[in-house]
């Protein structure tokens, strides 16, 4: 019983950290999606060696630990004269990392757009860029939506790594509380529960959005 009151008592303090967590994850998600919307078509349509370079980028970020990427950007880049504060370094690391995953999601989604859609747009006189913007991207986004939503939820969880370089987000708040209350079990359970609630709400919200953006009649074709 006492534990319950203790946990309820620390929630407001943790929620302050939660805002930072949400900021980091949404801003890096946005950075990721913008980069991915550029990288994916480059990988599919651009002349060599651009696709090869994009592929190298994707493999590099997917094939190494995010923590190492974060440490490299925060502690490594200053040697090259690029000095970032912890918050920016964290957004950059998460954003670049997420871009690699999101680019792959987009690529898969774009490949699912039938060739005939390209033909139709081109036959009307659309340029490649216009075809991408008006025909391919909007459809690919809908196809990619569930996977992109998962990626956002992953980012909420991965942003806890920011605590390692001193960004005071949810996990780091928890560490502070443990440091002066010595009640690691209750504190980390509370932290975990907050992540759980946020991620669950987010996936519910996403389901709502998906049904809002569904293309009427599409299910007939897919089914």
């Amino acid at each position, binding site marked *: 019983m006492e534990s319950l009151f203790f946990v309820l008592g620390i929630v407001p303090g943790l929620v302050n950290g939660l805002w930072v967590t949400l900021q980091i994850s949404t801003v890096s998600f946005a950075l990721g999606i913008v980069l991915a919307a550029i990288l994916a078509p480059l990988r599919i349509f651009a002349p060599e060696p651009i696709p090869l370079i994009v592929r190298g980028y994707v493999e590099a970020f997917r094939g190494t630990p995010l923590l190492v990427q974060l440490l490299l950007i925060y502690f490594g880049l200053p040697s090259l004269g690029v000095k970032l504060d912890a918050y920016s370094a964290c957004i950059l690391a998460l954003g670049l990392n997420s871009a690699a995953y999101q680019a792959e999601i987009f690529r898969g989604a774009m490949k699912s757009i039938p060739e005939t859609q390209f*033909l139709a747009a*081109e036959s009307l*006189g659309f340029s490649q860029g216009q075809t991408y913007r008006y*025909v391919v991207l909007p459809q690919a986004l809908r196809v990619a939506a569930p996977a992109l939503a998962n990626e956002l939820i992953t980012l909420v969880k991965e942003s806890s790594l920011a605590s390692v370089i001193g960004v005071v987000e949810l996990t780091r708040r928890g560490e502070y509380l443990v440091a002066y209350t010595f009640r690691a079990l209750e504190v980390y359970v509370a932290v975990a529960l907050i992540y759980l609630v946020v991620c669950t709400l987010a996936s519910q919200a996403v389901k709502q959005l998906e049904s809002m953006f569904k293309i009427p*009649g599409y299910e007939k074709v897919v089914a």
Partner: protein
Amino acid sequence: MNNLLLKVEGLKAGYDGLEVLRGVDLGLSRGEKVVVMGPSGSGKSTLLKCIVRLVEPWSGRIFLDGEEVTGREVDLRKVRAKTGFVFQQYNLFPHMTVIKNLSLPLEVVKRMPRSEAERRAMNMLKAFGLEEFADKYPLQLSGGQQQRVAIARALVMDPVLLLLDEPTSALDPELRREVLDTLFEVARQGRSMLIVTHELDFAEAAADRLVLMDDGLVVEEGDPWELLHTPKSDRARRFLVKIARSAQSVA
């Protein structure tokens, strides 16, 4: 250039090493309606696509409306903007309403203000009795309705030439009639058309000329009625039997 709207000379084309068109010659005058028939795989779709370079010709020359489509400095987007293409599978944009399918190309390609584009799109839908579907999405319509919208989309761009690739072949027999009626209507308006179809009705009643293709070549051409009913050469006769069979296997 004489008064031909479209002229195709010695066109060869294909796909990674497979030669599909083996030297096609074809002409089409302004206002003329030409039907192309041929067995499946004879290169009809490839021919239509080459005309707007959705497939790259290997060799030969194509002239459209006084401009060489195969020329070096041709503006392909302009060529495509002034031809309408109707595909067998309709190919509407599923994520846009019917009216948006018509108005977006006007906005994007013809740089028309949105209100003007929408007004024209609506007029075109009305002209084909499709206005009740304006705010529906393509996949909510029947195949026949979708194909009529696709024809309206091609026409709203006011093309000098309409290219149609088997516009009724993907449809169930009971839905073909409405599309065929639409095609007759377009033909009556005097629009230049190059249409691949096995609809004998249309070929006989609406076409000025019938072109028979086989194995990547134009093998016969002439008056549709004569070719279909009193084929002079053995080749044409054998050929019509072949088409009849291939049309049956499609249906």
